[in-house]
Protein backbone atom coordinates (compact mmCIF):
# COMPACT_ATOMS: atom_id res chain seq x y z
CA UNK A 1 0.00 0.00 0.00
CA UNK A 2 2.80 2.39 0.91
CA UNK A 3 4.54 1.71 -2.35
CA UNK A 4 1.29 2.15 -4.19
CA UNK A 5 0.84 5.61 -2.78
CA UNK A 6 4.45 6.49 -3.49
CA UNK A 7 3.84 6.53 -7.22
CA UNK A 8 1.55 9.53 -6.75
CA UNK A 9 4.16 11.57 -4.91
CA UNK A 10 5.56 13.15 -8.10
CA UNK A 11 2.09 14.49 -8.91
CA UNK A 12 1.97 16.38 -5.63
CA UNK A 13 5.54 17.64 -5.82
CA UNK A 14 5.16 18.71 -9.42
CA UNK A 15 2.01 20.65 -8.65
CA UNK A 16 3.86 22.35 -5.81
CA UNK A 17 6.62 23.34 -8.22
CA UNK A 18 4.13 24.48 -10.81
CA UNK A 19 2.34 26.67 -8.27
CA UNK A 20 5.64 28.28 -7.35
CA UNK A 21 6.35 28.96 -10.99
CA UNK A 22 3.07 30.86 -11.49
CA UNK A 23 3.68 33.23 -8.61
CA UNK A 24 2.22 36.33 -10.28
CA UNK A 25 -1.25 34.92 -10.72
CA UNK A 26 -1.12 33.53 -7.22
CA UNK A 27 -0.37 36.84 -5.53
CA UNK A 28 -3.30 38.34 -7.38
CA UNK A 29 -5.48 35.54 -6.05
CA UNK A 30 -4.28 36.15 -2.47
CA UNK A 31 -4.86 39.86 -2.82
CA UNK A 32 -8.39 39.56 -4.18
CA UNK A 33 -9.53 36.93 -1.70
CA UNK A 34 -7.97 38.70 1.28
CA UNK A 35 -9.61 41.89 0.11
CA UNK A 36 -13.02 40.25 0.23
CA UNK A 37 -12.24 38.94 3.72
CA UNK A 38 -11.55 42.48 4.87
CA UNK A 39 -14.79 43.68 3.33
CA UNK A 40 -16.59 40.99 5.26
CA UNK A 41 -14.72 42.00 8.38
CA UNK A 42 -15.81 45.62 8.09
CA UNK A 43 -19.36 44.61 7.24
CA UNK A 44 -19.64 42.42 10.29
CA UNK A 45 -18.14 45.09 12.51
CA UNK A 46 -20.78 47.52 11.28
CA UNK A 47 -23.52 44.96 11.91
CA UNK A 48 -22.30 44.20 15.42
CA UNK A 49 -21.91 47.93 16.09
CA UNK A 50 -25.47 48.75 15.07
CA UNK A 51 -27.22 45.74 16.59
CA UNK A 52 -26.21 46.52 20.14
CA UNK A 53 -26.40 42.81 20.85
CA UNK A 54 -23.07 41.28 21.87
CA UNK A 55 -23.87 37.94 20.26
CA UNK A 56 -25.17 37.32 16.76
CA UNK A 57 -25.84 33.85 15.40
CA UNK A 58 -24.10 32.32 18.41
CA UNK A 59 -20.87 34.25 17.79
CA UNK A 60 -19.44 37.16 19.73
CA UNK A 61 -17.92 40.08 17.91
CA UNK A 62 -14.41 38.80 18.55
CA UNK A 63 -15.31 35.27 17.52
CA UNK A 64 -16.70 36.67 14.32
CA UNK A 65 -13.33 38.24 13.53
CA UNK A 66 -11.66 34.89 14.05
CA UNK A 67 -14.40 33.21 12.00
CA UNK A 68 -13.94 35.50 9.00
CA UNK A 69 -10.21 35.05 8.80
CA UNK A 70 -10.10 31.37 9.68
CA UNK A 71 -12.65 30.78 6.93
CA UNK A 72 -10.18 32.45 4.64
CA UNK A 73 -7.25 30.32 5.84
CA UNK A 74 -9.28 27.12 5.75
CA UNK A 75 -11.01 27.57 2.42
CA UNK A 76 -7.90 28.69 0.57
CA UNK A 77 -6.27 25.50 1.83
CA UNK A 78 -8.99 22.87 1.41
CA UNK A 79 -11.17 24.17 -1.41
CA UNK A 80 -9.04 23.03 -4.32
CA UNK A 81 -10.83 22.96 -7.65
CA UNK A 82 -10.09 19.83 -9.63
CA UNK A 83 -13.17 19.78 -11.86
CA UNK A 84 -11.50 22.01 -14.43
CA UNK A 85 -8.54 19.61 -14.59
CA UNK A 86 -11.04 16.84 -15.21
CA UNK A 87 -12.77 18.72 -18.00
CA UNK A 88 -9.54 19.68 -19.76
CA UNK A 89 -8.37 16.08 -19.48
CA UNK A 90 -11.61 14.94 -21.03
CA UNK A 91 -11.55 17.52 -23.79
CA UNK A 92 -7.90 16.93 -24.65
CA UNK A 93 -8.25 13.16 -24.43
CA UNK A 94 -5.74 12.88 -21.60
CA UNK A 95 -8.13 10.57 -19.75
CA UNK A 96 -7.33 7.86 -22.27
CA UNK A 97 -3.64 8.51 -21.79
CA UNK A 98 -4.14 8.01 -18.07
CA UNK A 99 -5.91 4.73 -18.67
CA UNK A 100 -2.89 3.18 -20.37
CA UNK A 101 -0.79 3.65 -17.26
CA UNK A 102 -0.92 1.43 -14.20
CA UNK A 103 -2.34 4.09 -11.96
CA UNK A 104 -5.55 5.48 -10.57
CA UNK A 105 -6.63 8.66 -12.29
CA UNK A 106 -8.55 9.98 -9.31
CA UNK A 107 -5.72 9.46 -6.85
CA UNK A 108 -3.34 11.21 -9.21
CA UNK A 109 -5.72 14.19 -9.29
CA UNK A 110 -6.06 14.19 -5.52
CA UNK A 111 -2.28 14.10 -5.19
CA UNK A 112 -2.00 17.08 -7.48
CA UNK A 113 -4.60 18.87 -5.39
CA UNK A 114 -2.63 17.98 -2.28
CA UNK A 115 0.44 19.67 -3.74
CA UNK A 116 -1.62 22.78 -4.26
CA UNK A 117 -3.13 22.59 -0.77
CA UNK A 118 0.32 22.35 0.79
CA UNK A 119 1.44 25.37 -1.14
CA UNK A 120 -1.58 27.37 -0.06
CA UNK A 121 -1.03 26.30 3.51
CA UNK A 122 2.53 27.65 3.34
CA UNK A 123 1.66 30.86 1.49
CA UNK A 124 -0.34 32.65 2.73
CA UNK A 125 -2.19 30.27 5.11
CA UNK A 126 0.18 30.02 8.08
CA UNK A 127 1.16 33.67 7.97
CA UNK A 128 -2.40 34.89 8.21
CA UNK A 129 -3.12 32.29 10.81
CA UNK A 130 -0.18 33.38 12.98
CA UNK A 131 -1.02 37.04 12.38
CA UNK A 132 -4.58 36.36 13.47
CA UNK A 133 -3.43 34.62 16.66
CA UNK A 134 -1.15 37.54 17.54
CA UNK A 135 -3.97 40.03 16.85
CA UNK A 136 -6.34 37.93 18.93
CA UNK A 137 -4.08 37.92 21.96
CA UNK A 138 -2.58 41.42 21.73
CA UNK A 139 -5.55 43.44 20.54
CA UNK A 140 -8.67 41.46 21.37
CA UNK A 141 -7.30 40.11 24.63
CA UNK A 142 -8.44 36.55 23.89
CA UNK A 143 -6.66 33.31 24.80
CA UNK A 144 -4.30 31.59 22.39
CA UNK A 145 -6.05 28.63 20.76
CA UNK A 146 -5.18 25.44 22.61
CA UNK A 147 -3.04 22.70 21.06
CA UNK A 148 -5.89 20.18 21.21
CA UNK A 149 -8.17 22.47 19.24
CA UNK A 150 -5.43 23.10 16.71
CA UNK A 151 -4.81 19.39 16.22
CA UNK A 152 -8.51 18.65 15.93
CA UNK A 153 -8.82 21.53 13.50
CA UNK A 154 -6.02 20.13 11.32
CA UNK A 155 -7.56 16.66 11.40
CA UNK A 156 -10.87 18.15 10.38
CA UNK A 157 -9.13 20.13 7.62
CA UNK A 158 -7.65 16.96 6.15
CA UNK A 159 -11.12 15.46 5.92
CA UNK A 160 -12.46 18.73 4.53
CA UNK A 161 -9.83 18.61 1.84
CA UNK A 162 -10.85 15.06 0.92
CA UNK A 163 -14.54 15.95 0.91
CA UNK A 164 -13.87 18.94 -1.34
CA UNK A 165 -11.75 17.14 -3.91
CA UNK A 166 -13.89 14.00 -3.94
CA UNK A 167 -16.98 16.12 -4.39
CA UNK A 168 -15.36 18.15 -7.11
CA UNK A 169 -14.26 14.98 -8.88
CA UNK A 170 -17.88 13.79 -9.01
CA UNK A 171 -18.94 17.24 -10.12
CA UNK A 172 -16.36 17.34 -12.91
CA UNK A 173 -17.42 13.89 -14.08
CA UNK A 174 -21.10 14.77 -14.12
CA UNK A 175 -20.43 18.07 -15.81
CA UNK A 176 -18.69 16.05 -18.48
CA UNK A 177 -22.00 14.49 -19.47
CA UNK A 178 -23.75 17.81 -19.81
CA UNK A 179 -22.66 20.22 -22.48
CA UNK A 180 -22.96 23.32 -20.37
CA UNK A 181 -19.91 23.04 -18.14
CA UNK A 182 -19.28 26.76 -17.80
CA UNK A 183 -22.76 27.53 -16.50
CA UNK A 184 -22.56 24.67 -14.05
CA UNK A 185 -19.22 25.93 -12.76
CA UNK A 186 -20.65 29.40 -12.11
CA UNK A 187 -23.65 27.96 -10.31
CA UNK A 188 -21.39 25.74 -8.24
CA UNK A 189 -19.13 28.59 -7.13
CA UNK A 190 -22.09 30.74 -6.08
CA UNK A 191 -23.88 27.94 -4.27
CA UNK A 192 -20.81 26.65 -2.51
CA UNK A 193 -19.70 29.93 -0.97
CA UNK A 194 -23.20 30.12 0.47
CA UNK A 195 -23.66 26.52 1.57
CA UNK A 196 -20.23 26.10 3.13
CA UNK A 197 -20.67 29.10 5.41
CA UNK A 198 -17.95 31.09 3.69
CA UNK A 199 -20.28 34.02 3.21
CA UNK A 200 -22.38 33.88 6.37
CA UNK A 201 -21.85 31.51 9.31
CA UNK A 202 -24.39 28.70 9.02
CA UNK A 203 -25.55 29.39 12.58
CA UNK A 204 -27.26 32.52 11.26
CA UNK A 205 -29.79 30.49 9.30
CA UNK A 206 -33.18 29.46 10.75
CA UNK A 207 -33.22 26.10 12.51
CA UNK A 208 -35.12 24.33 9.73
CA UNK A 209 -32.65 25.47 7.09
CA UNK A 210 -29.75 24.38 9.29
CA UNK A 211 -31.29 20.91 9.46
CA UNK A 212 -31.15 20.76 5.69
CA UNK A 213 -27.51 21.90 5.71
CA UNK A 214 -26.74 19.08 8.12
CA UNK A 215 -27.66 16.62 5.39
CA UNK A 216 -25.41 18.20 2.79
CA UNK A 217 -21.65 17.70 2.51
CA UNK A 218 -20.98 21.43 2.21
CA UNK A 219 -21.19 22.30 5.89
CA UNK A 220 -18.43 19.76 6.50
CA UNK A 221 -16.12 21.54 4.09
CA UNK A 222 -15.32 24.79 5.87
CA UNK A 223 -17.82 25.51 8.62
CA UNK A 224 -17.01 22.40 10.68
CA UNK A 225 -13.24 22.89 10.99
CA UNK A 226 -13.60 26.60 11.74
CA UNK A 227 -16.17 25.96 14.46
CA UNK A 228 -13.86 23.31 15.90
CA UNK A 229 -11.09 25.87 15.90
CA UNK A 230 -13.33 28.30 17.74
CA UNK A 231 -14.06 25.60 20.32
CA UNK A 232 -17.80 25.79 19.68
CA UNK A 233 -18.46 22.08 20.02
CA UNK A 234 -18.67 20.08 23.22
CA UNK A 235 -17.17 16.62 23.32
CA UNK A 236 -20.16 14.67 22.01
CA UNK A 237 -20.85 17.23 19.29
CA UNK A 238 -17.22 17.04 18.33
CA UNK A 239 -17.38 13.29 17.92
CA UNK A 240 -20.50 13.69 15.83
CA UNK A 241 -19.18 16.34 13.41
CA UNK A 242 -15.90 14.47 12.89
CA UNK A 243 -17.77 11.21 12.29
CA UNK A 244 -20.02 13.04 9.86
CA UNK A 245 -16.99 14.30 7.97
CA UNK A 246 -15.54 10.80 7.84
CA UNK A 247 -18.86 9.50 6.56
CA UNK A 248 -18.87 12.07 3.78
CA UNK A 249 -15.36 11.07 2.76
CA UNK A 250 -16.52 7.47 2.42
CA UNK A 251 -19.78 8.31 0.66
CA UNK A 252 -18.16 10.63 -1.86
CA UNK A 253 -15.36 8.16 -2.47
CA UNK A 254 -17.82 5.40 -3.28
CA UNK A 255 -20.01 7.71 -5.33
CA UNK A 256 -16.96 8.84 -7.29
CA UNK A 257 -15.96 5.24 -7.99
CA UNK A 258 -19.42 4.47 -9.32
CA UNK A 259 -19.49 7.54 -11.56
CA UNK A 260 -15.96 6.79 -12.78
CA UNK A 261 -17.03 3.27 -13.76
CA UNK A 262 -19.92 4.68 -15.77
CA UNK A 263 -17.75 7.30 -17.38
CA UNK A 264 -15.03 4.88 -18.46
CA UNK A 265 -17.67 2.56 -19.82
CA UNK A 266 -19.12 5.31 -21.94
CA UNK A 267 -15.88 7.12 -22.51
CA UNK A 268 -15.75 8.65 -25.92
CA UNK A 269 -12.11 8.73 -26.77
CA UNK A 270 -11.99 11.44 -29.29
CA UNK A 271 -10.55 10.82 -32.73
CA UNK A 272 -7.43 8.89 -33.65
Amino acid at each position, binding site marked *: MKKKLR*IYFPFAS*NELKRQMAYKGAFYLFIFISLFSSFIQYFLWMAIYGSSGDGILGNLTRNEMIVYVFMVYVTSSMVMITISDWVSTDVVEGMI*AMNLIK*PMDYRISLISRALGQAIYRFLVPGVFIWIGLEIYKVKVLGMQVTGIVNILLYLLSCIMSFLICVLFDFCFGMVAFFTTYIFGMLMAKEALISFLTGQLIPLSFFPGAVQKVFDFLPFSSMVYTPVMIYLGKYNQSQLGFVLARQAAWVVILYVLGSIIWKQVTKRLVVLGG
Partner: protein
Amino acid sequence: MIEVKHVSKEFVSPKKYPGLKGAVKGLFSNEKVVKKAVDDISFSIADGEIVGYIGSNGAGKSTTIKMMTGILKPTQGQCLINGIDPSRARKDNAQNIGVVFGQRTQLWWDLPLSESFTILKEVYNVSDEEYEERMKFLNEVLGLPEFFSSPVRTLSLGQRMRADLGAALLHNPKVLYLDEPTIGLDLVVKDNIRKAIKIINEKYQTTVILTTHDIGDIEELCSRIIIIDEGKKIYDGSLEELKDTYGTRRKVSMEVKKQEKLKGLNLAEKLGASHEECRMEFDEENKILSVTFDKHKLQVPQVMNAVMEVTEVKDIQIQETELAEIVKEIYNHGIDGKAV
Protein backbone atom coordinates in the same frame (compact mmCIF):
# COMPACT_ATOMS: atom_id res chain seq x y z
CA MET B 1 1.15 -13.92 -26.68
CA ILE B 2 -1.76 -11.79 -27.72
CA GLU B 3 -5.13 -13.35 -28.38
CA VAL B 4 -8.00 -11.38 -29.78
CA LYS B 5 -11.15 -13.46 -29.79
CA HIS B 6 -14.24 -12.46 -31.75
CA VAL B 7 -13.99 -8.87 -30.65
CA SER B 8 -16.60 -6.32 -31.71
CA LYS B 9 -17.11 -2.72 -30.75
CA GLU B 10 -20.25 -0.73 -31.32
CA PHE B 11 -20.49 2.99 -30.72
CA VAL B 12 -23.95 4.17 -29.81
CA SER B 13 -24.56 7.86 -30.14
CA PRO B 14 -27.76 9.90 -30.05
CA LYS B 15 -29.09 10.77 -33.45
CA LYS B 16 -28.40 14.37 -34.35
CA TYR B 17 -30.54 16.57 -36.54
CA PRO B 18 -29.22 19.62 -38.37
CA GLY B 19 -29.82 23.20 -37.29
CA LEU B 20 -31.24 24.78 -34.17
CA LYS B 21 -34.59 23.15 -34.65
CA GLY B 22 -32.76 19.87 -34.93
CA ALA B 23 -30.93 20.47 -31.67
CA VAL B 24 -34.23 20.94 -29.87
CA LYS B 25 -35.68 17.88 -31.58
CA GLY B 26 -32.61 15.92 -30.55
CA LEU B 27 -33.26 16.78 -26.92
CA PHE B 28 -36.58 15.00 -26.97
CA SER B 29 -35.90 12.12 -29.28
CA ASN B 30 -34.53 8.84 -28.16
CA GLU B 31 -33.22 7.71 -31.49
CA LYS B 32 -29.78 6.20 -31.47
CA VAL B 33 -27.23 5.66 -34.17
CA VAL B 34 -25.19 2.50 -33.86
CA LYS B 35 -21.82 2.36 -35.53
CA LYS B 36 -20.07 -0.96 -35.64
CA ALA B 37 -16.43 0.11 -35.69
CA VAL B 38 -14.96 -3.35 -35.17
CA ASP B 39 -16.83 -6.43 -36.32
CA ASP B 40 -15.92 -9.86 -34.99
CA ILE B 41 -12.15 -9.71 -35.31
CA SER B 42 -9.91 -12.54 -34.18
CA PHE B 43 -6.17 -13.03 -34.42
CA SER B 44 -3.28 -14.06 -32.28
CA ILE B 45 0.24 -12.72 -32.19
CA ALA B 46 3.28 -14.55 -30.87
CA ASP B 47 5.96 -12.98 -28.68
CA GLY B 48 8.52 -10.97 -30.56
CA GLU B 49 6.49 -10.50 -33.72
CA ILE B 50 6.13 -7.15 -35.46
CA VAL B 51 2.68 -6.97 -36.98
CA GLY B 52 1.38 -4.23 -39.23
CA TYR B 53 -2.28 -3.51 -38.63
CA ILE B 54 -3.51 -1.62 -41.62
CA GLY B 55 -6.71 -0.44 -43.23
CA SER B 56 -8.19 2.66 -44.78
CA ASN B 57 -9.33 5.68 -42.74
CA GLY B 58 -12.07 4.75 -40.34
CA ALA B 59 -11.49 1.02 -40.78
CA GLY B 60 -11.34 0.48 -37.03
CA LYS B 61 -7.61 0.25 -36.36
CA SER B 62 -7.42 2.72 -33.52
CA THR B 63 -10.55 1.28 -31.99
CA THR B 64 -8.97 -2.19 -31.93
CA ILE B 65 -5.79 -0.80 -30.36
CA LYS B 66 -7.86 1.01 -27.74
CA MET B 67 -9.56 -2.25 -26.83
CA MET B 68 -6.28 -4.12 -26.61
CA THR B 69 -4.83 -1.45 -24.33
CA GLY B 70 -7.85 -1.32 -22.03
CA ILE B 71 -9.06 2.17 -22.91
CA LEU B 72 -12.27 0.86 -24.45
CA LYS B 73 -14.25 -2.19 -23.47
CA PRO B 74 -15.29 -4.51 -26.30
CA THR B 75 -19.03 -4.79 -26.88
CA GLN B 76 -18.47 -8.48 -27.55
CA GLY B 77 -15.52 -10.83 -27.39
CA GLN B 78 -12.34 -10.67 -25.42
CA CYS B 79 -8.71 -9.67 -25.73
CA LEU B 80 -6.08 -11.54 -23.77
CA ILE B 81 -2.65 -9.98 -23.50
CA ASN B 82 -0.32 -12.55 -21.97
CA GLY B 83 -3.36 -14.06 -20.31
CA ILE B 84 -4.63 -10.75 -18.90
CA ASP B 85 -7.94 -9.27 -20.01
CA PRO B 86 -7.32 -5.51 -20.14
CA SER B 87 -10.99 -4.67 -19.71
CA ARG B 88 -11.00 -6.52 -16.39
CA ALA B 89 -7.50 -5.95 -15.03
CA ARG B 90 -6.60 -2.69 -16.67
CA LYS B 91 -3.79 -1.76 -14.28
CA ASP B 92 -2.13 -5.18 -14.37
CA ASN B 93 -2.19 -5.07 -18.12
CA ALA B 94 -0.91 -1.50 -18.22
CA GLN B 95 2.21 -2.52 -16.34
CA ASN B 96 3.24 -4.75 -19.25
CA ILE B 97 2.46 -2.58 -22.23
CA GLY B 98 3.78 0.54 -23.88
CA VAL B 99 1.56 2.67 -26.07
CA VAL B 100 2.22 5.49 -28.50
CA PHE B 101 -0.67 7.30 -30.12
CA GLY B 102 0.96 9.38 -32.81
CA GLN B 103 -1.83 11.92 -32.73
CA ARG B 104 -1.66 12.58 -29.04
CA THR B 105 0.96 12.65 -26.34
CA GLN B 106 0.97 10.68 -23.12
CA LEU B 107 3.44 13.09 -21.57
CA TRP B 108 2.56 15.88 -19.20
CA TRP B 109 2.11 18.92 -21.35
CA ASP B 110 3.31 21.57 -18.89
CA LEU B 111 6.24 19.69 -17.42
CA PRO B 112 9.77 19.38 -18.72
CA LEU B 113 10.31 16.05 -20.43
CA SER B 114 12.69 15.00 -17.65
CA GLU B 115 9.85 15.36 -15.10
CA SER B 116 7.54 13.19 -17.18
CA PHE B 117 10.20 10.50 -17.13
CA THR B 118 10.61 10.84 -13.36
CA ILE B 119 6.88 10.39 -12.92
CA LEU B 120 6.80 7.37 -15.24
CA LYS B 121 9.74 5.83 -13.40
CA GLU B 122 7.64 5.87 -10.23
CA VAL B 123 4.39 4.90 -11.92
CA TYR B 124 5.93 1.81 -13.51
CA ASN B 125 8.07 1.10 -10.50
CA VAL B 126 11.36 1.05 -12.42
CA SER B 127 14.43 0.54 -10.22
CA ASP B 128 17.30 3.02 -10.29
CA GLU B 129 19.69 0.65 -12.07
CA GLU B 130 17.13 -0.30 -14.66
CA TYR B 131 16.31 3.34 -15.20
CA GLU B 132 19.97 4.22 -15.77
CA GLU B 133 20.45 1.40 -18.22
CA ARG B 134 17.23 2.08 -20.12
CA MET B 135 17.86 5.81 -20.35
CA LYS B 136 21.32 5.21 -21.74
CA PHE B 137 19.84 3.00 -24.41
CA LEU B 138 16.97 5.35 -25.21
CA ASN B 139 19.22 8.38 -25.35
CA GLU B 140 21.34 6.55 -27.84
CA VAL B 141 18.62 5.37 -30.19
CA LEU B 142 16.24 8.30 -29.84
CA GLY B 143 18.55 11.21 -29.07
CA LEU B 144 16.53 12.48 -26.14
CA PRO B 145 19.17 14.66 -24.38
CA GLU B 146 18.77 17.31 -27.07
CA PHE B 147 15.45 18.40 -25.55
CA PHE B 148 15.31 16.54 -22.24
CA SER B 149 14.83 19.65 -20.12
CA SER B 150 12.30 21.42 -22.36
CA PRO B 151 8.60 21.49 -21.49
CA VAL B 152 6.72 19.01 -23.63
CA ARG B 153 4.51 21.66 -25.17
CA THR B 154 7.55 23.33 -26.75
CA LEU B 155 8.76 20.19 -28.52
CA SER B 156 8.47 19.82 -32.27
CA LEU B 157 6.33 16.99 -33.59
CA GLY B 158 9.32 14.79 -34.33
CA GLN B 159 10.90 15.45 -30.95
CA ARG B 160 7.61 14.77 -29.22
CA MET B 161 7.19 11.50 -31.05
CA ARG B 162 10.68 10.37 -30.04
CA ALA B 163 9.94 11.43 -26.48
CA ASP B 164 6.65 9.53 -26.51
CA LEU B 165 8.31 6.41 -27.85
CA GLY B 166 10.97 6.70 -25.16
CA ALA B 167 8.29 7.12 -22.50
CA ALA B 168 6.45 4.04 -23.76
CA LEU B 169 9.65 1.99 -23.53
CA LEU B 170 10.97 3.15 -20.18
CA HIS B 171 9.60 0.15 -18.30
CA ASN B 172 10.64 -2.32 -20.99
CA PRO B 173 7.13 -3.45 -21.88
CA LYS B 174 6.51 -6.87 -23.36
CA VAL B 175 4.08 -5.45 -25.87
CA LEU B 176 4.34 -2.17 -27.71
CA TYR B 177 1.32 -0.63 -29.44
CA LEU B 178 2.08 2.03 -31.98
CA ASP B 179 -0.82 3.88 -33.54
CA GLU B 180 0.59 5.88 -36.45
CA PRO B 181 4.01 6.48 -34.88
CA THR B 182 5.46 8.11 -38.00
CA ILE B 183 2.63 10.47 -38.83
CA GLY B 184 3.88 13.86 -39.94
CA LEU B 185 7.57 13.10 -39.53
CA ASP B 186 10.36 14.03 -41.91
CA LEU B 187 12.25 11.29 -43.69
CA VAL B 188 15.23 11.30 -41.33
CA VAL B 189 13.20 11.16 -38.13
CA LYS B 190 10.96 8.52 -39.68
CA ASP B 191 14.01 6.47 -40.41
CA ASN B 192 15.32 6.89 -36.87
CA ILE B 193 12.01 5.87 -35.36
CA ARG B 194 11.87 2.77 -37.56
CA LYS B 195 15.43 1.86 -36.62
CA ALA B 196 14.66 2.33 -32.96
CA ILE B 197 11.62 0.06 -33.19
CA LYS B 198 13.69 -2.57 -34.96
CA ILE B 199 16.51 -2.46 -32.42
CA ILE B 200 14.11 -2.66 -29.50
CA ASN B 201 12.32 -5.60 -31.05
CA GLU B 202 15.57 -7.45 -31.61
CA LYS B 203 17.19 -6.58 -28.31
CA TYR B 204 14.24 -7.17 -25.98
CA GLN B 205 12.00 -9.44 -28.04
CA THR B 206 9.26 -6.84 -27.69
CA THR B 207 6.06 -7.66 -29.53
CA VAL B 208 5.08 -4.72 -31.70
CA ILE B 209 1.68 -3.91 -33.17
CA LEU B 210 1.81 -1.05 -35.55
CA THR B 211 -0.86 0.85 -37.42
CA THR B 212 0.24 3.16 -40.16
CA HIS B 213 -0.64 4.70 -43.48
CA ASP B 214 3.01 4.73 -44.49
CA ILE B 215 3.81 1.71 -46.61
CA GLY B 216 7.49 2.30 -45.88
CA ASP B 217 6.88 1.45 -42.23
CA ILE B 218 5.32 -1.82 -43.25
CA GLU B 219 8.02 -2.78 -45.72
CA GLU B 220 10.82 -2.03 -43.32
CA LEU B 221 9.39 -3.40 -40.13
CA CYS B 222 6.63 -5.93 -40.53
CA SER B 223 6.92 -9.56 -41.44
CA ARG B 224 3.23 -10.03 -41.02
CA ILE B 225 0.29 -7.81 -41.77
CA ILE B 226 -3.35 -7.80 -40.87
CA ILE B 227 -5.67 -5.77 -43.05
CA ILE B 228 -9.09 -4.69 -41.88
CA ASP B 229 -11.83 -2.99 -43.75
CA GLU B 230 -15.01 -1.56 -42.28
CA GLY B 231 -14.27 -3.32 -39.04
CA LYS B 232 -13.76 -6.76 -40.58
CA LYS B 233 -10.51 -8.62 -40.99
CA ILE B 234 -9.84 -9.22 -44.66
CA TYR B 235 -6.25 -10.37 -44.71
CA ASP B 236 -3.87 -11.91 -42.23
CA GLY B 237 -0.57 -13.29 -43.42
CA SER B 238 2.98 -12.61 -44.41
CA LEU B 239 3.99 -9.67 -46.49
CA GLU B 240 5.54 -11.95 -49.12
CA GLU B 241 2.36 -13.88 -49.54
CA LEU B 242 0.35 -10.72 -49.97
CA LYS B 243 2.70 -9.53 -52.68
CA ASP B 244 2.62 -12.93 -54.38
CA THR B 245 -1.10 -13.34 -54.31
CA TYR B 246 -2.25 -9.84 -54.97
CA GLY B 247 0.69 -8.24 -56.67
CA THR B 248 -0.45 -9.77 -59.93
CA ARG B 249 0.11 -6.78 -62.08
CA ARG B 250 3.21 -5.98 -64.01
CA LYS B 251 3.99 -2.90 -65.94
CA VAL B 252 6.19 -2.74 -69.03
CA SER B 253 7.12 0.71 -70.30
CA MET B 254 8.55 0.97 -73.82
CA GLU B 255 9.90 4.00 -75.58
CA VAL B 256 8.86 3.63 -79.22
CA LYS B 257 10.33 5.14 -82.34
CA LYS B 258 7.27 5.69 -84.50
CA GLN B 259 4.14 6.42 -82.59
CA GLU B 260 1.90 6.52 -85.70
CA LYS B 261 2.42 2.81 -86.04
CA LEU B 262 0.70 2.18 -82.74
CA LYS B 263 -2.61 3.51 -84.02
CA GLY B 264 -5.20 0.82 -84.07
CA LEU B 265 -3.12 -1.57 -82.02
CA ASN B 266 -5.23 -3.43 -79.48
CA LEU B 267 -2.92 -5.58 -77.40
CA ALA B 268 -5.64 -7.14 -75.31
CA GLU B 269 -7.46 -8.42 -78.34
CA LYS B 270 -4.27 -9.48 -80.05
CA LEU B 271 -3.09 -11.51 -77.05
CA GLY B 272 -6.51 -12.89 -76.20
CA ALA B 273 -6.86 -11.15 -72.85
CA SER B 274 -9.64 -9.03 -71.44
CA HIS B 275 -9.33 -5.28 -71.18
CA GLU B 276 -8.86 -5.56 -67.40
CA GLU B 277 -6.02 -8.02 -67.79
CA CYS B 278 -4.07 -5.87 -70.22
CA ARG B 279 -4.24 -2.10 -70.26
CA MET B 280 -2.40 0.30 -72.54
CA GLU B 281 -1.47 3.89 -71.93
CA PHE B 282 0.45 6.17 -74.20
CA ASP B 283 2.48 9.17 -73.14
CA GLU B 284 2.60 11.31 -76.31
CA GLU B 285 5.29 13.68 -75.11
CA ASN B 286 7.91 11.08 -74.28
CA LYS B 287 6.61 8.52 -76.74
CA ILE B 288 6.32 5.97 -73.96
CA LEU B 289 3.84 3.15 -74.19
CA SER B 290 2.99 1.57 -70.83
CA VAL B 291 1.29 -1.78 -70.68
CA THR B 292 -0.10 -3.01 -67.38
CA PHE B 293 -1.06 -6.64 -67.37
CA ASP B 294 -1.87 -9.62 -65.21
CA LYS B 295 1.31 -11.64 -64.74
CA HIS B 296 -0.60 -14.90 -64.45
CA LYS B 297 -2.24 -14.32 -67.82
CA LEU B 298 0.54 -12.86 -69.93
CA GLN B 299 4.32 -12.98 -70.02
CA VAL B 300 6.67 -10.06 -70.55
CA PRO B 301 8.18 -11.40 -73.83
CA GLN B 302 4.70 -11.94 -75.25
CA VAL B 303 3.83 -8.31 -74.68
CA MET B 304 7.14 -7.07 -75.97
CA ASN B 305 6.91 -9.15 -79.11
CA ALA B 306 3.44 -7.93 -79.86
CA VAL B 307 4.59 -4.32 -79.69
CA MET B 308 7.84 -4.88 -81.57
CA GLU B 309 5.92 -6.44 -84.42
CA VAL B 310 4.47 -3.03 -85.24
CA THR B 311 7.21 -0.63 -84.26
CA GLU B 312 10.83 -0.44 -83.19
CA VAL B 313 11.45 -0.06 -79.44
CA LYS B 314 14.31 2.08 -78.09
CA ASP B 315 14.13 1.40 -74.37
CA ILE B 316 12.32 -0.95 -72.01
CA GLN B 317 11.50 -0.84 -68.29
CA ILE B 318 9.76 -3.59 -66.33
CA GLN B 319 8.14 -2.88 -62.96
CA GLU B 320 6.67 -5.19 -60.34
CA THR B 321 3.57 -3.85 -58.60
CA GLU B 322 4.53 -1.96 -55.51
CA LEU B 323 3.03 -2.82 -52.15
CA ALA B 324 1.43 0.60 -52.09
CA GLU B 325 -0.45 -0.29 -55.27
CA ILE B 326 -1.63 -3.58 -53.85
CA VAL B 327 -2.83 -1.94 -50.68
CA LYS B 328 -4.55 0.81 -52.61
CA GLU B 329 -6.26 -1.79 -54.73
CA ILE B 330 -7.44 -3.69 -51.66
CA TYR B 331 -8.71 -0.51 -49.96
CA ASN B 332 -10.58 0.39 -53.13
CA HIS B 333 -12.08 -2.91 -54.14
CA GLY B 334 -11.73 -5.17 -51.13
CA ILE B 335 -10.18 -8.55 -51.47
CA ASP B 336 -13.10 -9.99 -53.45
CA GLY B 337 -13.62 -13.65 -52.94
CA LYS B 338 -10.05 -14.26 -51.94
CA ALA B 339 -10.76 -13.55 -48.26
CA VAL B 340 -8.68 -15.45 -45.76
